[in-house]
């Protein structure tokens, strides 16, 4: 009985080997290696897109308490830089934003000149305000927590702010993306000290930056 079974198995093995030989043009020299399947994060199917910030449709707005009375608002008209983002890979989000200090606009020329003076932003010596992100984490589908280096008057401090993705579209004019963030800084951290001692202006400046950017 055992001999019959052994003969049947041998015959089967011969048939199987012959069959494999028919299906493969060249028999493998070595036995196939069996490896465990790799467990990896799903790869994004597309590369991160770099967007160029459109200064026409981007704005920086600041707010400061004036004499303890009203909240005074002004804006920076010239916001430029780049944004990198892949919707499938939130960690790819990065910001490199530049605000031209000389574009400060309060609708009053003499106040603009005062804000450009060394009392405030000192545009002659520090013409740009910059933000470069260093880390990003996703809060929800449209919200990110972004950490980065904010430089004002040549002084760099690390800040963390919540950034909202306000939209991403494929229009006739190409791919566009929009982000917005609001954060508060202590201006004395950046050497903007005028009016602190006498209480003319508040210590905190709230900044709202809204950016629209076009895919490169």
């Amino acid at each position, binding site marked *: 009985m055992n001999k019959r079974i052994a003969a049947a198995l041998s015959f089967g093995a011969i048939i199987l080997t012959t069959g494999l030989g028919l299906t493969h043009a060249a028999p493998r020299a070595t036995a196939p290696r069996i490896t465990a399947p790799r467990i990896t994060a799903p790869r994004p199917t597309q590369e991160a897109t770099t967007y160029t910030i459109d200064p026409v449709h981007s704005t920086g707005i600041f707010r400061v308490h004036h*004499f303890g009375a009203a909240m005074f608002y002004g804006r920076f008209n010239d916001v430029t830089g780049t944004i990198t983002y892949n919707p499938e890979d939130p960690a790819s989000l990065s910001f490199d934003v530049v605000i031209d200090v000389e574009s400060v606009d309060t609708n*009053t*020329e*003499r*106040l*603009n*000149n*005062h804000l*450009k*003076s*060394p*009392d405030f932003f*000192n*545009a*002659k*010596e*520090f013409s740009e305000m910059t933000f470069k992100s260093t880390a990003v984490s996703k809060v929800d589908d449209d919200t990110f927590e972004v950490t980065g280096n904010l430089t004002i*008057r*040549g*002084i760099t401090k690390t800040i963390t702010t919540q950034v909202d993705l306000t939209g991403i579209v494929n229009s006739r004019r190409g791919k566009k993306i929009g982000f917005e963030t609001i954060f508060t800084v202590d201006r*004395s951290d950046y*050497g903007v*000290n*005028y*009016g*602190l*001692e*006498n*209480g*003319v202006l508040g210590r905190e400046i709230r900044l709202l930056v809204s950016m629209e950017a076009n895919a490169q």
Partner: protein
Amino acid sequence: MEVQILIQGVVLPAALAAAVLLLGFRPWQRKEHYQGGLWSGGIALALAFIVSFISQNGWESLQPNSKRDWIVYLALALGVIGLPAALLRKSTWPTWLAGPLLVLAITLIIKPLDNPTYALLGLPGLCGVSVFLWFLLEPLARRRPGASLPISFLIIFTGIAIIAELTGGITFPIICGALSGVCGAAFVISLLNPRFSFHAGATPLLATMPPTILWLQGWYDYSGAPVACFLLPLLALPLLWLGELPVITRQRPWIGVVARVFLVTIPVAIAIVLVMNTQSSDPYSP
């Protein structure tokens, strides 16, 4: 401009400085007309400058973040640099010692200039003008004690304050207002003590601050004001020497003072008119 800013930035510093001048020249010792207070002029002016600067920009600004912020240290240096001359009553060697220190201090202010033309022409120009004005002012102050110089500098610093206010910024106008206040106090003291003088102690700061403030104000200017309005007030000091012409010195003392005031006012007034002509009609007041 708000009253609070004026009190903290002008009135308080000027009052402190006036107290120093009073201690220096002691107008209550009328018989001998005390002249031992030459040390107090520089100290009073520097004190007013520093207190006014800090009242506007806070203690944090003592850690300089811009060229302008160095000026507070320049004021301190210029306030004490004349002390040896004032205390020893010999002005030659401290003056020559102070010259290079002055140039060094101004270099510190202007060091990070990004405009080569401005740096190459402006720096030696500023140093040269400062030293030139100093050497004009010191013998004049020695020769002409009394009310002439305090009231002349009151006009000069008031003029610079107006020019600086119109061309942007508030720190320099307020500081110049404080310095005007010190000169006003000095004028009153000089009426009580005719031997009051700015020579030795105060001349380094009085000769150097007007060109330095105007230089920086001109560099930071966004108003489009003509360069002449930053130069004209400096003509006031050389013009003061015209007050030493015999036609004026032969007159009564008060007529001489009026004549010198008139001479100083001309370039300052022209500069102010020039600035006003370039200004917009914005309602903004710092």
